[in-house]
């Protein structure tokens, strides 16, 4: 068993497994409002899929797959989605993050359901993007690309 075989095995397994991991991540995210899990957990799983890819195919390949700009933009967009739900709730006359007044569906229950859904999606996107960012930031050995990033998801 040479080193090379090991690489082939991991690469092949990764190619197969990563889509499933991501699918699972999406499942966890979108079921955040009605079952265990949620945006954070799903986001971590989603991020982990990218990290797994980067570990196996190398940081450079990982960066080619998920560009820096992408993670930067998505970590912002996720928070904006979260905050946006709250603001929409305010605009339609409720309090910040008061889901059941959202103008979706017909009754408060459905509105609340969708409100939480969007929140979870927002959290998921941000967490995934931030996880990936943290990984690449700390993984890079190149001095010039060195970044520090302190914005976490509080």
């Amino acid at each position, binding site marked *: 068993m040479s080193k090379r075989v090991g690489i082939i095995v991991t690469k092949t397994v990764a190619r197969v497994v990563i889509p499933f991991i991501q699918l699972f991540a999406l499942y966890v995210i979108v079921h955040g409002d009605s079952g265990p899990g949620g945006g*954070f957990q799903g986001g971590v799983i989603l991020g982990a899929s990218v990290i797994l890819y980067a570990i196996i195919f190398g940081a450079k390949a990982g960066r080619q797959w998920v560009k820096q700009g992408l993670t930067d933009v998505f970590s912002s967009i996720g928070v904006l989605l979260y905050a946006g739900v709250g603001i929409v709730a305010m605009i339609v006359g409720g309090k910040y993050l008061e889901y059941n007044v959202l103008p979706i569906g017909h009754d408060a229950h459905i509105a609340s359901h969708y409100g939480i859904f969007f929140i979870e999606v927002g959290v998921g996107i941000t967490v995934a993007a931030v996880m990936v960012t*943290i990984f690449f930031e700390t993984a890079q050995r190149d001095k010039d690309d*060195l*970044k*520090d990033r*302190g*914005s*976490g*998801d*509080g």
Partner: protein
Amino acid sequence: MVELILGKFNYLIAIALAMIGFYAMIAKSNLIKKIIGMNIFQTAVFLFYISIGKVHGGTAPIVWDKAVLYDNPLPHVLILTAIVVSVSTTAVAFALIIRIQKAFGTIEEDKIIEIKRNGYKGDME
């Protein structure tokens, strides 16, 4: 005595872990080890939180027609937030350590202090 240990073992474990972590944070010279200590310290607090959320005979707090008693879910939610914070802190700490490594060439605190004292001038970039 036995009763105390059995009755409050969750606290004792949390305290022991916290002390271990605290010791590492303060006494270890290696910056990574400090961060490990910090994580142990925080985890001790998380354990403590989760243990106080446990209700005797309660089940997981998912609405379910057969359950009569649920565990208190609030500490879990709080700790989820705290874990996020902890992860972020760790990430920032690692980013700092990497840059310290670039700037000083070491992550041993005593060596960094020595380098500073010897007045090796110049900014890191």
